[in-house]
Structures are given as C-alpha cells and as structure tokens.
C-alpha cells in the first residue's frame, strides 16, 4: 500500500509535485488506478491546464466516484483544487462537488494582468494545522486565471483585484490554489503539514 499517491489527471508538470514530495522523503507514485487510490493513506490531486480537461480525464478513467468517496486526507493543487468545488466557469464545467461554491474567472484590466502569475501573499482567515509554521503574509507562487471566492471553508486568502480562496479545508478535503511544489519553503511546509495532517 502506498502512503501517498498522486492522481494522474493529466497536466504537463505533474512531475514537479512528485519531486517536491521526494525532497520531503516521500516517494509518491503517479496512478490512475481506482484501487491504488482508494487504498492510499493520502491522496494528492495535482492539476495544470483547464478544469474541463481535468474533469474529462477523471470521467474517462472512471475516477469521479472514487475521488468523491475518499475518507482519507485529499489535497487538490491549482486546477486540482478548483475541481473540488461544485462547478467552474471555465468551460461551464460540473466539478466534483466536495466543496460548496463555484470557481469564477478572474477579471483583468490594464493594471491587473490575468493569468495571475507570480508570488502573492497568503492571508490567514482561520486556524488550521495545514497553516502550522506558515507566517500570515507568507508568499506563495500562483499561476491561474480562475479562482473561488473565499467562502466558509477558506483558511487563507490572497488578493488579485479581488480576494480569492488560496487555501481551503473542509473535513478531509484540502486544496491549494497556489503551487506548493514551486513555493520554496512555504510550499514545502504546506506539503509537510498535509503529510502529517489528521483531519478532526
């Protein structure tokens, strides 16, 4: 049984999440096998690309119900977090519905470039073991054009024109809009917190 598995829902640079876990001493296999995913202690759902493509791939692999029914800690990253919500404006996609709410398009203007690409601050909104050792205002690396509004389960938000949910946690389900695998010490700390996390 694998301690941690990475769900292969497509996306070009899934390898960088794997490397980040290796730096923490965890060898997480990449898998699209429902049994392997169900039996893992922890599951990470990375995602680069579009919500519609990620959901399409999960449906193709017949993994939608598997992921929806996981009881162990689950972490979605970037698009992997967005598809935890009910729906996304990106391609009018119906998502996994593990978290309430919709993912909206970020509005850009002359001073506000979209995609939101670069380092931005994580502003704490609620206490969570996932935030242990991460300072209020620490920088994390973001690359995205869509985001969820900071709802009830948002534990850290960030700001790009509007405030949006940067880190979410509800029961066993967590999500990071930023890329922990590319967020230096802050990102490494989040992954480490996730690896040690026992949902209440």
């Amino acid at each position: 049984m694998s301690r941690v598995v990475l769900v292969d829902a497509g996306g070009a640079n899934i390898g960088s999440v794997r490397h980040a876990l290796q730096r923490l001493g965890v060898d997480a296999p990449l898998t699209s096998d429902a049994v392997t995913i169900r039996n893992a202690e922890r599951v990470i759902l990375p995602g680069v690309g579009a919500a519609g493509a990620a959901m399409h791939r999960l449906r193709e692999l017949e993994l939608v119900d598997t992921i929806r029914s996981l009881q162990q800690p689950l972490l979605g990253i970037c698009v992997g977090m967005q598809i935890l919500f009910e729906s996304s404006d990106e391609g009018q996609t119906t998502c996994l519905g593990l978290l309430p709410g919709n993912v909206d398009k970020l509005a850009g203007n002359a001073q506000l470039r979209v995609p939101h690409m670069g380092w931005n601050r994580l502003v704490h909104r609620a206490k969570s073991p996932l935030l242990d050792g991460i300072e209020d205002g620490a920088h994390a690396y973001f690359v995205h054009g869509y985001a969820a509004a900071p709802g009830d389960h948002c534990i850290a938000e960030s700001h790009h024109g509007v405030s949006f949910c940067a880190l979410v946690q509800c029961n066993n389900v967590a999500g990071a809009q930023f890329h922990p695998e590319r967020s230096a010490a802050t990102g490494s700390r989040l992954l480490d917190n996730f690896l040690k996390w026992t949902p209440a």
Partner: protein
Amino acid sequence: MLSKRIIPCLDVRDGRVVKGVRFRDHIDMGDIVELALRYRDEGADELVFYDITASPQGRSVDRDWVDRVAQVLDIPFCVAGGIRSVEEARGVLHAGADKISINTPALERPALIGELAAAFGNQCVVVGIDSQRDPDGQWRVRTHSGDPDAMRAPGMCTLDWVVQAQQHGAGEIVLNCMGNDGVRRGYDVEQLRAVRAVCDVPLVASGGAGNLEHFADVFRDADVDGALAASVFHSGDIAIPDLKRMLSAQGFEVRHAA
C-alpha cells in the same frame, strides 16, 4: 498584492552556465544546479535557463539537465532554446520545467504558439523576443540571436509581433532589448513602455541591468511584471537580497527569501 519578480537568467551551453557580452565572448560561470540553488537561496523569484546553442544549431534543448534542476529546485523555472514542436515542449515540461519559452521557432511558424497553448495552457507558453532599433527608428525583431554569425532580421516590427503573439496564445512576453544587453546602462524603458501599452499578459524586461536603481526605474516607468538579468547577478555586483530591500524601501511589493 502580486510581487514584482526578479529573474536571473542562466545561459546554458553544453550543460554549463555561460555569459557573454552582447551575445558574444561566452565565459564559463559554473554548474547549472549549483547556480540555480544559489539564486533560490538568495531569493530569486523564478529562473530562466536559456540553451543559447540550441536554436542556431537547429537542435532542441538537452533534457538531462532540466531533470537535474527539477529534482532540487523549488521555485518556478522556464526553459528556452530551440523548442519547435509540441512533442519537444512536452519533453521539457515532463522533465519538470514550469514554462517553455520560444523565440525563433515562433517567428518562423506563429501557429506553434497556439498549439503549445492548447496542449499545456497559455500559462506555460512564454514568447521571447529579441528586439533592436533599426536606423529608421523602428524596433524590429531578430532571430537566431544565440549565435552572432547566424542572426537574422526578418523585418517584423516588435510591437506588431507582441500583439500577434498574444493573439496566438502567448501567456507571457519576455522582451530582450538587444541594444542594451550586457552593457549595464539600464533597461530600455522607452521600448518597454511601448510594448507594455500593447501587452495584456505579464511582461518581463530583459537586457541592460547595471545597478539597483535600474530595476526600480523599469518597474516604475514601464510597469513590467518582472525584470530579468544575468551578468550583474553572476558577477555578484548585485546581490538579490540587497536589491529586494531597496525595492521594498521604494514601495514595491517584493518577496523576501525566508
């Protein structure tokens, strides 16, 4: 608030980091992984690795060092040099790069930008532009700039190309102002302002950084999202922590290394 990005650029030749002046006279600067980690520790926000020999020699980037960098580096990095197909880009991204930057191949076949954006998302697709002012006062692009003997001027106006590249799906533009490259007199603020006016995606300034104030100038006067430099960082003339302290004191949002 989004931070202004400081981006060291590492020119790679035969698996080593090198640096030249005005694209010539390359000297060895050290091992790729060693330098990448040094810049990460100093607080670099992102790194660009540019395989300077790939495009002129008509070959793609060597993936071994991309994989070595990806295993140890925990900040984003972009790889440039001779990527001319979706398959070549996939190899580099799968090896662990976050973005790929295309220059000459994009000018030769602009549809490549859209093919890459469709396959990987536009956030992965950086269009690098080498630009120089011609005697008639127009800024025009250059291709094959990695090798001065192979360099060409296809006649495309820089501002037109910036607009077209975005229409094709570019997620970021890196503008290298060749007249300023390596001479340390400051970024070409005039040209960057003109490009900024037609560029809705993130814009990164390249070429000309010589002192701390040059970075403040280009962020303030050209409103670029990031500033790229090589020699001032490699030589140690500018330490990234000092640079970020100065920018912070001037009111710019920057990220300090932990």
